[in-house]
């Protein structure tokens, strides 16, 4: 509270400040409204070309489906539809209050939580003075627990509900959101993995480097400065886990930019227009191509190594695992067996690029390493 407000409560400015402070305090007490900047240590950069216009009235209840995951094609469609509905309702719906109704959610995966959280944070950033975004807690404790452990509530600045003490916890690296390359976050993620599996120094460095390159790629390729879309420029989200029950570790990395296929198609437009074969390529083709061999907009062998490195690191581990990349309408999963599974999303597309990397059933001892040279493909 300002001194002016305390000394002269009758002054007009003082009253405004006092009222504003009371409102803030009340909201904080109730812990009800989402405040995505409470934990953010930076001011996200909005796209000034995108405006949220119009007067806002009434409350809209957006009901979440029972299952939120990326496990099957229909799950992916349902989740992407929800995210688009959420974004459209909040940014264009002209409602004063939006209730994100989680009550019926019975199953949710960490990557779904990450996508939903990032979308809430984006929308909140664009209409924080116009629309109040709030929500309900899921009835199923497992979902609440996941949201709590992954830092969903903390990131949105709301109080998590109490859970029965009997729940077994996974070790999660809580969702981190940054707009710069932060190698120390990569290090803390690998520290979390070490509860389940300690990488030899050489592998630890390789994974660290791959993560830093994911962050670096966001600046190099992800966001289009000329776009009219509601971007939070340079922003990326990272979450990870180490699961004791099935000895698995993994992380998810997401940016809300243009997505790999759109970026490549824009940068390589002339080459694509000259080739009949490339014109027929789906988004999955482009994702697969980008992961298997570096693609650089600069026509340089010196760039575009991030995803390739991540895949090569996975291939070098003698364990079962996968690298899955979802971007626009492309969805490709690369398995350690050398196979890849592609899916073309037909109904909805993902804004940006989601990278999911995991290894399962880690052998505690006697692990073989089959690393190739770092620049074989380069």
């Amino acid at each position, binding site marked *: 509270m300002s001194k002016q407000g305390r000394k002269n409560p009758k002054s007009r400015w003082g009253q405004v400040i006092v009222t504003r402070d009371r409102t803030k305090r009340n909201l904080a007490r109730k812990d009800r409204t989402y405040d995505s900047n409470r934990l953010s240590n930076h001011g996200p950069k909005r796209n000034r070309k995108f405006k949220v216009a119009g007067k806002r009235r009434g409350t809209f209840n957006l009901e979440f489906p029972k299952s939120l995951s990326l496990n099957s094609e229909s799950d992916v469609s349902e989740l992407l539809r929800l995210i688009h509905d959420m974004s459209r309702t909040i940014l264009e719906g002209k409602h004063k209050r939006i209730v994100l109704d989680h009550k019926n959610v019975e199953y949710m995966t960490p990557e779904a939580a990450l996508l939903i959280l990032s979308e809430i944070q984006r929308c909140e950033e664009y209409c924080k003075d116009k629309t109040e975004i709030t929500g309900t807690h899921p009835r199923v404790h497992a979902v609440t627990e996941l949201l709590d452990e992954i830092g969903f509530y903390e990131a949105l600045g709301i109080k998590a509900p109490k859970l029965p003490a009997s729940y077994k916890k996974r070790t999660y690296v809580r969702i981190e959101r940054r707009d*710069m390359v932060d190698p120390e976050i990569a290090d803390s993620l690998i520290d979390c993995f070490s509860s389940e599996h300690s990488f030899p120094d050489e592998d630890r460095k390789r994974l*660290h480097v791959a993560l830093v*390159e994911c962050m670096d790629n966001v*600046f190099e390729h992800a966001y289009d400065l000329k776009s009219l879309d509601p971007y939070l420029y340079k922003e990326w989200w990272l979450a990870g886990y180490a699961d004791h029950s099935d000895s698995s570790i993994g992380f998810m990395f997401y940016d809300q930019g243009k997505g790999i296929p759109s970026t490549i198609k824009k940068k390589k437009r002339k080459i694509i227009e000259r080739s009949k074969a490339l014109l027929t390529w789906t988004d999955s083709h482009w994702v697969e191509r980008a992961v298997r061999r570096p693609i650089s907009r600069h026509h340089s062998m010196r760039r575009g190594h991030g995803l390739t490195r991540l895949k090569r690191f996975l291939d070098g581990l003698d364990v079962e695992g996968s690298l899955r990349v979802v971007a626009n309408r492309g969805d490709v999963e690369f398995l350690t067996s050398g196979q890849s599974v592609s899916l073309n999303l037909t109904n909805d597309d993902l804004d940006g690029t989601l990278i999911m990397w995991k290894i399962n059933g880690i052998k505690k001892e006697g692990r073989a390493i089959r690393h190739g040279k770092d620049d074989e493909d380069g």
Partner: protein
Amino acid sequence: MAEPFYYSVAKSFTRFPGGRRRQHGLHSGEEFRESIVLPLLSQHERVIFDLSGSAGYSSGFLDEAFGELGAIFGLPEVERRVVITADDDPDAVETAWARVREAAKESGVRH
């Protein structure tokens, strides 16, 4: 011939090297080249860069920090004046030299 100057990145710059450019965050390759590598090369005939002890070097960092030297000075000059070493990270040394060679080739600098 004077003794080469020894520089440990982990001890004197950072244990957590960042990304490619300054605008991408702290301890970037560009920052390292502009504030450390080029001034050292202007003061000393030969410099040993020891990459040991760091958490890991992204190829963007190495490209910007060392690769760019290939474009500025040309490969023979860089090979003559720069030594890159790392006890615990042979990948980084290999990648750094690969970037120097590629940069020299792409820029077409001949000395």
